[in-house]
Structures are given as C-alpha cells and as structure tokens.
C-alpha cells in the first residue's frame, strides 16, 4: 500500500486559485465519498484551509491515484485540469509522508510554527473518520503525524516565541514580571492595537485595568469592556504608579509623558519596574524614559524588531524540527512496508519454525533414548502441525492482499504473533485534542 498526496498551498498557488479549490468545511461528506469512489483510491482524507488544500489517499497504484486525484480536484470545482496543473504538487511514498509530517508540524506554514494547522488537520481527520473514508493506513498515518507535530512542538522552540506585535508585548512583559496575575495595566487612548494587546494581557491574567481617554465617555466604555476603571485624562499621570504596564496610542502631536514625570512615578513605586508600550505614531512617550532604571519603553518599531528576532529564532529551530521529521519518516515507512503480505508470511513462518526448534530441543533433552527414526518422525510431526496451522492464515493473507481489507489482516497477524514491527509508538486512537491552539 502507498500513500499519495495531491495538493496546493500558499507556496504554489495565489489566493485566487486557492479560493476556487477550497472545500467548504461544513460539507465534507460529499467530496470525501466521491474521492473514495475513484477506483485507485482505497482511503481518503481532505485537508482544506485558507492556505492549502491537500488530498491524501492510500492506494495500491500510486501513479494512477495521483492522476485521478488531480482530475478529481479540478472536476469537483469545475475548473479545467490544465488551468490548475501548474499550481498542484503530487507526492508519493516517502515524499508524501514527509510532506504531511512537515505540514502538521507547521514547517510548511506561511508563519513558521503557527499552531492552527495542526488543529485543522485534526478536524479534517475527524471528518474522514466520521465518514469512514480513513482506514488502517490513514488512521495510523495521521496519528503518527500528530505525534510528530507534538514532538516538534515540545522538543524545539519553533512555536515558543510570539510572532505578532500584541503577543510579543505579552511575552516581553513576562520577561520583566514573571507573573502577570497581580499586575495592573493602563490603556491611554483607544487604538485598535492597544485594545488587542490589552485583551491579550487580560486573558493572560492581568487583573487591574485602567483606561483613560480625552473623551471620558469612550474611556468609560472601554473600561466597562475590561471590567476596569476609567480615569480622567487630565490626571492619568497620578494613577500611573498604580499600574505596571502602560499602553499608549493617542493622536497627540507631542509627548504626553516625559522623563521627569516618569522619574517621579518610579520613585512613588519604590522602583518596582514598569513596562511601557508606545504604539502611537507620532510617539506619546519621550524615548528618554527608556534610560531610566526599571523603566522599559518599547515603541512600534521595537516590538516589530522583537517579532523579527522571534521569527529568526523559529528559523533556527526549524532545522531541528526537520531532523525530527526525518527520524519519524523512517519509522513510519518501515511500518508501511511491514504491511506487505510476502514478508509477513515469511516472518510468521520463521517465528513458528523457531518455536518448533526450541520445543524439539527441549523434548529431545528429556527423551534421551529415542532412536534416530523416532526422532525424525517427531520432527516431521511438529513440521506438519506448523504447516496445518499456517495453511488457512496464509491462504487468507494471499487471497485478500488485493482487497481493501488486506492490510487489516496483515496488521492483525503481526500483532497476534508478535512479529517484529518497528513502527514505533502506535498508540491507541485518542479522542481529538483541541487544546493545542495558541
């Protein structure tokens, strides 16, 4: 059995093509069933997100299946196959395994290491499992892909550093404060980015929120949203000492917070550190504030710089992730190879042959005064038993090897007789785990 993948991604197709070839997440049953009707396709799975479409299948005839899937993708969406053929990629065998492992580990994502793709593949697998278009091979394949993705996430830092400005702000705060739950934040002005960052802070535990705005009503409105308190703009400086994090995004043409004022505030706070985020352009806070001890001032460019550095860090980690993927490919490929009928029959025979030899040795050890001809007939009898026992299973394996159920028998034989199957951690199917979202 082989695995093939036909698909397109943000790397091979512009959005105009991707939107044409996407599958609606609410109606996956029809395309999945149609895909399974293709003569060369034994099992099927469709991953469709805004950045990629992947048709993944288990098949006996990889070349035919890939051609059929390309046609299917075009026909289903009513476009001509020629029109999209340059946007499609097809992978088979080891390449296909590598491809899905990389996609699941977010190594092929637009934003390297972004966590959504794993959840999207899990959802796609959920449909395939629900409509029974995934069988033994794809079940195992997908679960392996999930475990590879998990390994990549825990063993490398590929997803550990924020790559959006608002998340970067939260992360920096953690590098200063350790805990955020006993901290306070003040929002000055009402920029959208400010609000977004404030929301991140609140979901990360910040409990106290103060809001100030030149229009007091707007401050009150925003404060209500965060369960916070509005303070009049004229005296916001007096309240600064109460908070640890300050975010500003006013339209003021000049600095609204200077070095002298901040010095005063820090003194009132007994030098407990403060993190100031100035998202406004032109800036709201005098950059000299950053020279004060225990005050950390970041403007938009600084935060962008952090995001860039984090992306670079992710790039570095990608190398390690690729190495993990390579390791796991080998294991899975071996398992797939073990599903071949012939080597299984040979392994089964060898196993029983070993048992026969051991038991004969034991018996002959106890019965020392057997004649040679007696020994021979005992040996022959043991051999005959093996042949009789093996006859039916071997016949079934051979007969079913071209059916869709063939792999199930092979897998069962390998499990029942404990034949060496170095497929690694083939755990029981777990319920889908949606907790991996950022």
């Amino acid at each position: 059995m082989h695995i093939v993948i036909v698909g397109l991604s943000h790397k091979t197709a512009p959005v105009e093509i991707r939107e044409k070839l996407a599958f609606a997440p609410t109606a996956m049953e029809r395309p999945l069933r149609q895909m399974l009707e293709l003569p060369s396709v034994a099992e099927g799975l469709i991953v469709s997100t805004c950045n990629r479409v992947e048709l993944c299948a288990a098949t006996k005839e990889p070349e035919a299946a890939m051609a059929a899937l390309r046609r299917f993708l075009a026909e289903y969406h009513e476009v001509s196959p020629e029109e999209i053929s340059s946007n499609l990629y097809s992978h088979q065998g080891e390449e296909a395994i590598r491809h899905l492992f990389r996609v699941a580990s977010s190594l092929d994502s637009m934003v390297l290491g972004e966590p959504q793709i794993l959840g999207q593949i899990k959802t796609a697998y959920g449909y395939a499992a629900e409509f029974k278009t995934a069988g033994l091979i794809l079940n195992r394949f997908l679960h392996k892909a999930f475990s590879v993705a998990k390994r990549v996430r825990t063993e490398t830092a590929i997803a550990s550093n924020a790559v959006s400005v608002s998340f970067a702000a939260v992360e920096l705060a953690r590098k200063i404060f350790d805990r955020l739950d006993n901290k306070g934040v003040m929002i000055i002005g009402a920029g959208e980015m400010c609000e977004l960052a404030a929301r991140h802070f609140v979901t990360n535990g910040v409990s106290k929120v103060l809001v100030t705005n030149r229009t007091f009503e707007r401050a009150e409105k925003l404060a209500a949203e965060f369960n916070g308190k509005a303070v009049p703009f004229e005296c916001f400086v007096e309240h600064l000492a109460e908070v640890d994090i300050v975010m500003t995004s006013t339209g003021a043409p000049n600095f609204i917070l200077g070095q002298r004022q901040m010095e005063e505030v820090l003194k009132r706070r007994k030098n407990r550190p403060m993190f100031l985020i100035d998202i406004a352009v032109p800036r709201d806070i005098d950059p000299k504030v950053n020279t004060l001890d225990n005050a950390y001032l970041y403007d938009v460019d600084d935060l962008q710089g952090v995001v860039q550095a984090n992306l670079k860090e992710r790039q570095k980690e990608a190398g390690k992730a690729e190495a993990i993927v390579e390791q796991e490919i080998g294991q899975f490929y071996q398992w797939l190879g073990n599903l071949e009928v012939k080597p299984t029959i040979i392994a089964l025979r060898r196993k029983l042959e070993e048992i026969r030899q051991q038991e004969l040795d034991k018996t002959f050890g106890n019965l020392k005064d057997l004649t040679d001809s007696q020994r021979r007939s005992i040996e022959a009898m043991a051999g005959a038993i093996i042949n009789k026992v093996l006859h039916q299973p071997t016949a079934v394996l051979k007969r079913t090897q071209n059916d869709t159920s063939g792999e199930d028998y092979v897998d069962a034989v390998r499990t029942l007789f404990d034949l060496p199957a170095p497929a690694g951690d083939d755990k029981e199917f777990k319920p889908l785990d949606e907790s991996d979202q950022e």
Partner: protein
Amino acid sequence: MTANVLLFKITLLTYFAATIFYLIGVISRKESVRLAAIWLLSGGFVLHCITLAARWFATGITPVASLYESLSFFAWALVGIYMIFYLRYRTIMLGAFITPLALVLMIIGSAAPKQAPALNPMLDSWWFPVHVTLAFLGHAVFAIAAAAGIMYLLQERMLKSKKFSGLFYRLPSLDTLDSMNYKCLTFGFPLMTMGIISGAIWANSAWGGYWRWDPKETWALISWFLYAALLHGRLTVGWRGRRAAIFAIIGFAFLLFTFFGVNLFLSGEHSFRNFTGQ
C-alpha cells in the same frame, strides 16, 4: 586517607560532567539534558557529602582547616545551597553559573596539599566548625546572589537595548532574578553576621581578644557593610533591580578576595599556615 582523596577526585569528575551538561543546557532545550545535569550534580553532591564525612573520620577534625579542605567545603556548600534554590526556582541557568564555580573551587583544591592538618591545639574549640560552617554557607548564598545578579544585568541589558540573543529566551524574568537577590540577602546576611560573631567569640577564647583587625577580619567587615547597605537600601528606599544586582556582584567579589586574596597575598591569623602551626 587515600580513600577520601580518591572520593574527592571522583566528586570532582562528577562535577565536571555536570558542568558540561549545564553548559549544553544553556543552548539546548532538551529536557533530557536538564535532567542529566541536575542528576549528575545531585550524584556529585551525595559523593561530596561522603567525601567530607570520610575526611572527617580520617583526620578527626572538621574538614575545614587546610586550604584543600576549605575549598572542598566551600564547593559543597555552594552546590548544596544551589540545590535548595533549584527546588524553588527550577532554573537551569543558575546552575550554569554555580556548577562551573564549584568545579573551579574543586580544581584549585585538588592542586593544594592534601595531608591532614595538625590543628593548632589553641584553635581546637567548638567554635571553630561553627564559625567556618556559617561563614561558608553565607558565602555560598551570596554566590547565588552574584550569579542571579549577573543574569539580571544580562537580561536587563537585552531588554533595554532591545537586542536579544538566544540567551534571552532562557533567562528567568527580571522579577524572578530580583526576588532571588532578595531571598539570598535575607538568608545570607544573618549567616554572615552569625559567622562573624561566632568567629569573634572563637578568637576571644583562642587569643583572648574579640577583634584584632587582621586583614581577613577587615575585609570581611567591609563585605558585611556592603551587604548591610544593600539590605538597608532594599528595605527602606526601594533599591532593587540593577543596583541590587551590581551590589551582589561586588559583594561577592569582596568575599572571594577575602577568602583567596587574604590567604594568598596577605598574612594574618586566618592564613592556613597559622591554623596548622607549620
């Protein structure tokens, strides 16, 4: 006698291995590296305890009388205190500073003569082990404070300059490092104070005078004032962060000088020569 020296060498090698894993742990994110480091260090610490006990039995006096013994004891205290801190803060970075320091102390110790000191009978008093133990525990706690201080300055510089190296992602937060500084101060300062007081009592029983301004006493007093100033500043005017970190580093430099410099360059009652009456 050879048994405890052999044990000492095995301990040293274990610390060496632990140091390597700690340094790898600075770069690698692998959980296995961190575990290897902490287990090697724990194993080394257990060996070290046995080493000290063996030495004690062999010589019959608390093993802190010769340079070799006291370096070994200092390293032991350092590792022990670090392990207590590890239970609370779980940071591998701290170990990456402390383990090499313990290793260096052990290496210097291994170069020092190892014969059993014949303790000057005048000094043989119950106050001797008390004084030395308290002093070294205090030193060890302040070594942690200095390591936390160095980490604080590194982290603070990156946050201020907005240029981040790979280290940034592994250092604990500024708050954590600053709270380490404070914890060390609250434990280290009483230890050091009691160490000095017990030393004075011992001196009185040995030489009939509490304080004789010998170089080591003077330098220890200077360090004590430094830490007293830091503690005072922290409690009253909110010295913290960078300033506290710098103080902790300077304070420990003074302590190191008090320990090494005075023994090596200056003479006085505290030099090991006088202990052993050679």
